[in-house]
């Protein structure tokens, strides 16, 4: 079971955390909602829960709760640019289908 960050993603997360001035890492998760079943959660983490799994990638702690782990195993988080827009992208091998924009998905 593993979740990875690309180096570009890790660099951005590190600088965002630094700018924020607090927080121990980045939470990746899923929750049920959205137009295609599941939606990704991407949040700063101030407190790690006992049941969370913690990964360390390029010096950044990635925190995942046990329920989300099932859906995210093998996911790689990347940081991309698309014209003027930039942000994070989930490359999740478990996804069977996603909505047009990729914000929500089904497994």
């Amino acid at each position: 079971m593993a979740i990875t960050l690309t180096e570009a993603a890790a660099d951005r997360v590190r600088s965002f955390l630094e700018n924020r001035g607090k927080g121990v890492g980045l939470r990746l998760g899923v929750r049920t909602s959205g137009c295609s079943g599941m939606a990704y959660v991407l949040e700063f983490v101030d407190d790690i829960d006992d049941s969370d799994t913690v990964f360390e990638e390029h010096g950044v702690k990635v925190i995942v709760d046990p329920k989300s782990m099932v859906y995210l195993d093998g996911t790689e988080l990347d940081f991309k640019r698309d014209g003027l827009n930039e942000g994070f992208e989930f490359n999740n091998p478990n996804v069977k289908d996603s909505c047009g924009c990729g914000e929500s998905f089904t497994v």
Partner: protein
Amino acid sequence: MALLQISEPGQATAPHQHRLAIGIDLGTTNSLVASVRSGLAETLADESGQHLLPSVVRYLQHQQPVVGQSAKEAAPDDPMNTIVSVKRLMGRGIEDVRDNEFDTYKFVEQESAVPRIHTVAGDVSAIEVSAEILKSLRARAEKTLGGDLSGAVITVPAYFDEAQRQATKDAARLAGLNVLRLLNEPTAAAVAYGLDKKSDGIIAIYDLGGGTFDVSILRLNRGVFEVMATAGDSALGGDDMDAAIARWIMQQANIQDDADHAQIRRLMHEARRAKEALTDADATTVEVVRMDGSLWQGQLTRADMHELIDSLIRKTISPCRRALRDAGIGVDEVDEVVMVGGSTRVPRVREQVEAFFKRPPLVDIDPDKVVAVGAALQADVLAGNKPDEEMLLLDVIPLSLGLETMGGLSEKLISRNTTIPVARAQEFTTYKDGQTAMSIHVVQGEREMVQDCRSLARFSLHGIPPMVAGAARIRVTFQVDADGLLSVTAQELTSGVQSRIEVKPSYGLEDTEIEQMLRDSMEHARGDMESRRVREQQVEADRVIEALEAALQTDGEQYLDQAEREKIDQALSALHQVNQTEDVEAIKAAIKNLETTCSAYVERRMNSSIQHAMSGHSIEEFES
């Protein structure tokens, strides 16, 4: 493919529910847009990596207007259709623009109070020009953030009056932006520096932009901002430094004053380049092509420039002193000084500010971007992306708001430098018997007489039930919302009839005029007090005359013999006469004299009305 941003713990939004909010610094010279992404507030760049959008709009025939750098570059060759520094025109009337300050443009002569500029694409107002700038920033933000915007915070100078704020809001609406709120520029700058994270302190914001200077004193109290005082000069900025340098070049290069628009713009351009070069260098070479095509070259040293701009910098220090005085604090009580505006990059400005405030100013955040960054942080909070964080910003109104009372006196309901939002109410009454309507005249200013204040609006309250003078109770409420916009409500309390008005004055005031009004109110303080005493006494005399004449009309013949009546008429006409003068004591004496003369008559009337009221009743009824 949607690209995601990191949210605060527990704040991840549902898909397609992102609340994208932006902060816009709509500047005189340059404008910027900023947003908070993954917790980081940044200004957004255009395709070529430029953050600053020159606030320049060029109108073309049969084409969409061009905004920004390319418009700015075209300005020297097409000055009539290229609108620069439009912010100076926001909320201003046709009278205001007759100054030579705007003589580049051709204003359309018309009835409306809103000046329109004639261009090849038709006549445009300042609001429409500003909307073009905002549209361009909006398009940039939507491309960068990848979605529709839920709202924007737009900054305005702390000194903007209601008309200018309303004009800014109208421009935003025209550009299709939802205005979350207007934020004062200095407050935005303090927020950008995270000064709101401290618990308390006093912060001075020194904002020297391209065309305007503002200084604000903010007090931070348990994490809450309050603008204690503001001062400034709306006709002072980096442009003036450029103009001073340009004049120097003209002198040195022997260019005559009758240079055409294009030549003047080129000179200004070279002056600005020289000023910017002297931020790091001690001297720079200045080049300009004369009208006859010959080239002139010269050296401008930093010392030369200091000589040219020192008087301008000194002009920024006296508003600083005034703001401190208005705030009632000494220079040593200021905890931080924040530098805002591109012109604060000039090392000489920093030196002088440090010398005045006796402390080095904060300059870490790019002074061009600091206001937009603060606005973005505020927009993020208002859009609900950071509900845990509480940030309450308080602003002040620049001039007292009041209404006209009898005799042309101004009754102030909200005094200047009151923090907003605020609501104040006061009760007024009728002046004449049977009065059924009341005209309410809303004024702004510090002077005692309405004629010396600025008229904001007039409206009427109709349907007051007929009553004797002084019996009606009319409650007038002044409410200023968080954006500084005023609404006035008048309600007659016994009947409940009410009337209200939103003040969207036809045009606004300049900072310099506000200053002038403040200065006048101090200079004329004694005279104004005297006028108030005179007017109050005259109004009192009018009231007495009014009441007596009404009484004489009804029952004068019944209670008075010929001799008595003559005496009263004499005293009455004496009061009439003396009331035309401004002699307070004489009016007072004449009123007294009239009252004495009438005392017998008044007594008879009183007795008669008591008798009238008691007739048919036994005395016991009144004793019980």
